[in-house]
């Protein structure tokens, strides 16, 4: 399974961390980190995270097929316009 977060939309509300702590984490200064290729075991959790995101920044797709490795390292983002929900 592939998980993508539109980091331009993300405001660090942190709802994804409640829904899928196996995939999403908001560390110290409100920086979102996530696993963009989590195990299918967490599919339901990923769906919950997508639904719960207040700005609907999460998309879920099938895992990349062989030969087209779309995996990315865990993404991070500065806390520029975050709303401070976890502050």
């Amino acid at each position, binding site marked *: 399974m592939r998980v993508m977060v539109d980091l331009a939309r993300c405001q660090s509300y942190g709802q994804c961390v409640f829904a899928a702590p196996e995939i999403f984490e908001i560390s110290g200064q409100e920086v979102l980190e996530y696993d963009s290729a989590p195990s299918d075991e967490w599919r339901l959790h990923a769906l919950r995270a997508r*639904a719960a995101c207040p700005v609907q920044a999460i998309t879920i797709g099938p895992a990349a097929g062989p030969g087209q490795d779309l995996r990315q390292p865990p993404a991070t983002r500065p806390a520029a316009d975050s709303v401070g*929900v*976890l502050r």
Partner: protein
Amino acid sequence: MSKSTGVASRPVSVSDVSTPRAELFARVLDPASRANPYPLYAALRSEPVSRQSDGTWVVSGFDEIAALLHDPRISSDMTNAGQSAGGQSLIMQDPPNHDRLRAAVMGRFTPEVVESLRQEVHNLIDGLLDAVGSGTSLDLVEEIAYPLPVSVICALLGIPPQDEARFHGWADTLARTLDLDPTMSREEQAAIDHAFTELHHYLENLVADRAEHRGDDLVSGLLTGGDRGEPLRGQELLITVRLLLIAGHETTVNLITNGMLTLLRHPDILERFRREPELVVPMVEELVRYEPSVQFRYRAALADIEIAGTTIPRGSVVVLLLAAGSRDPGHFTDPDSFVPDRIPNEHFGFGGGIHYCIGAPLARMEAQIVLPELVRRLINPRLTMDPPPYRPTAALRGPRHLWIEVDGIRP
């Protein structure tokens, strides 16, 4: 869109009635509109920032609500609009005090804490449905939706089971304090004051006890503090715990009740839900958009705010009509339809910005457990009365009773 001052008094057609635009919000507040306020919201949205004849500014467009939810010139402390203090809890405060108190709660309202309540929610819904017994009719509000969320909050706070009944009584009475309700009678106000005093005494003792014997409940956690939040003490702790009880009660009652009501009004979707249990995930979100427990929130303007071609003057009372924004056709396709798998679904059901609902993860979990159980166990459920009778409050909207006939209850 025309924004000339004359617009406000021009009549707008709202289904079969005409109401001057500047009187529309008064009609929203009128209990007679409770069963279906949405045509009034649609009429208001034709002027997304609308001055009402009493001087209140009603904001009903998606973009305008989103902008003001993030605008530091908008205050949640209604003393800034000349109103009496509505309590000092964090929901009625601005930064920096709001942020400090919120951080203290968030530091302890963790994913682990919410997850630890999952089994309790299952046990509660099982027990409540078992208690309906072999009857063929039930009031979903009285028998299921009302008792469940208070029990969950009691579990969260670590209230001993033998004290729960008293909590239910206080929660009932205090639910009204989330509404700024000018029609509240002297007796109601007295009942609220009395409940506040009793709850206060109870919590004082609870806090004193937890200070001696820390547990893994939220009250102990707030006393201890966490990585991100300082410990809370005294009045601040009491007021914060009281807020959790009030904010997490009737909102969740209404989500469960509106959920069943909406499903029973859409038998095709109910059937589909039986076959596709995973549908519950986007469906709960759609319920919070389509029939939100919190229809609007009051704010105060700290400065003159230019928006949508008009200016909200400093000191004004501002109504953020969240439920209208969540049905704005400029943002949602087919906004008046209940689409259980609507994706994306960026709604205001849990607010937005710095006051975004702290309990949203818990509320989602409760609804995602309770609705499938109701659908699984109630055999051939039918609405006895549609629309059902509603509670009078406009901001916190939901049925007072939801009578359902069933052929039985599955084990």
